[in-house]
């Protein structure tokens, strides 16, 4: 099956040919770190819009507005006028902008984009569009509940259902860690010394025994040469992680060697539990990284 931009082609939509007189760009985007929104528009729409933004930033109109105030008709009109629309089309464009904002708030979207917005002899047509929605709002957004993320592998889908973030990589060391930042830092450290992780797996905050067990089960499916577990407990409890490890080792007799680091909340209890089962756990990252090297070369 063909891929376009890393996405598998799942369906093809055939549309009536539009007689394009001009292509525009318009979107409403959340500026998250600025805690506001942008209405963005350009006369130079189409697939090259990013190049336009880089080489001719003056061709991109960007107007900010607060969430509370929302997109006003006045601001929408101002931007539509900057695009140079004729008086006959001005109202249609203003309404498109206001509609974008209505969709943004109704769907809790972080991006609602039309590119290109095409001028034809019979009026304006939205030829292509894109939205970014909030997974965390899915519980009250029935329309997005059934959307499936197409780019995920089967294992990644399983991970999503189980509630942790997981990305398949092409190395040989299975990774189970907690916290996206710590997991990424661990992968960075491994890559820096030439070791290759088989996956990224952040088991999430306050993971239950079941969740950690499922994570291990998933990692075993990758058939890694060893599994590196790096837990720094905050809301996650080391004793619960230890219980899951013990259970998994009992159930999966062919599990690869595990190199374990447990520190933070209930670290003593966790290490003690493992010790009682004859499993060694380390307290420092550097120790486990060295141990992994040893296991792989052994």
């Amino acid at each position: 099956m063909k891929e376009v931009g890393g996405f598998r082609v799942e369906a093809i939509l055939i549309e009536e040919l539009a007689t394009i007189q001009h292509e525009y760009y318009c979107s409403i985007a959340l500026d998250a770190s600025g805690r506001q929104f942008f209405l963005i528009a350009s006369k130079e729409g189409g697939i090259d819009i990013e190049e336009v933004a880089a080489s001719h930033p003056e061709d991109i109109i960007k107007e900010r507005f607060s969430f509370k105030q929302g997109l006003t008709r006045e601001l929408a009109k101002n931007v539509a006028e900057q695009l140079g629309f004729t008086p006959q089309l001005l109202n249609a464009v203003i309404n498109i902008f206001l509609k974008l904002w209505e969709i943004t708030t109704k769907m809790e979207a972080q991006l609602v984009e039309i590119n290109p917005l095409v001028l034809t002899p019979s009026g304006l047509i939205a030829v292509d569009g894109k939205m970014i929605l909030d997974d965390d709002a899915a519980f009250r957004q029935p329309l997005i509940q059934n959307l499936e993320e197409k780019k995920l592998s089967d294992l990644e889908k399983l991970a999503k259902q189980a509630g942790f973030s997981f990305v398949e990589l092409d190395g040989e060391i299975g990774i189970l860690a907690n916290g996206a930042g710590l997991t990424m830092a661990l992968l960075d450290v491994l890559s820096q010394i030439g070791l290759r992780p088989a996956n990224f797996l952040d088991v999430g905050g306050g993971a239950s025994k079941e969740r950690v067990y499922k994570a291990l089960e998933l990692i075993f499916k990758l058939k890694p040469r060893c599994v590196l577990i790096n837990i720094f407990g905050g809301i996650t409890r080391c004793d619960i992680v230890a219980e899951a490890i013990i259970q998994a080792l009992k159930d999966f007799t062919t599990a690869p060697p595990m190199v374990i680091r447990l520190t933070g909340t209930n670290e003593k209890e966790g290490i003690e539990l493992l010790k009682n089962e004859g499993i060694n756990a380390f307290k420092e990252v550097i120790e486990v990284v060295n141990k992994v090297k040893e296991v792989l070369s052994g």
Partner: protein
Amino acid sequence: MANMYISDNSKVVVQGITGNQGAFHTKLMLEYGTKIVAGVTPKKGGQEVHSVPVFNTVEEAVRETGCDISIIFVPARFTFEAVKESLSAGIKMTCIITENVPVFDMLRLVEMAQERDQHLIGPNCPGMMIPDKIKLGIMPGDMCHYGNVAVISKSGTLSYEITKTIGNAGIGVSAYIGIGGDPVRGKTMIEVVEYYSKDPNTEKIVLIGEIGSDEEEKTAEFIKKNVSKPVVAYIAGKSAPEGKRMGHAGAIISGDFGTAQGKIKALKNAGALIADLPWNIPKLLKS
């Protein structure tokens, strides 16, 4: 001495105290010495959790105990109402531990807080700590002692790793602030850096960032213009495969942002020292 609106005299209310996480971390915070005077869980007023009285509403808790700081452990879909309640009751600083809070809920809450000159931190954050004085959050308490380095982090567990390394090196911490990993935050990285650039008890700043968003880049710009204190930074995600980007709009808003390399370049350019490994931070702090 107030520090990001909390101090060792802060009287804390735990919202969601009867839940698993709420009860467990109430115990750990009490052991640290945090003055937790009240808990709130609707319909569970009258109970006690680790000898802390539970009330039905924050308003009642404020009236009965004089609590002035809140920490939130309620599930994501009830967080909006819980924080709204805390703001209405006049709580000065509300620390939101909960993860998966909808972005639009945070937009509304941030606006409410700003209008009333009240403060939020988080969501999806480990909380904040003034070592040896108050722990308002889920971070391990034994990472470090009090000193003059402020640690500001987007990431939770990675900041524990780094703060512990700093503590092990005998360097003290004036404040540990976990701003959280979600897109819309109660306190932005720039706001917290600005606060500690002016804090008389802080001499150096440690910044822990990760790939995604343009927050580190914006903060680097701010540091370049406004911060004379030394800044040491670590950015996670250098080896991460390129992820999905925010449509065309992302690139249009702030150019080519979000990569570890881009963030490191911006921070270097602002005069920050960059640690290539998390445990090299103490060395850079001592240099």
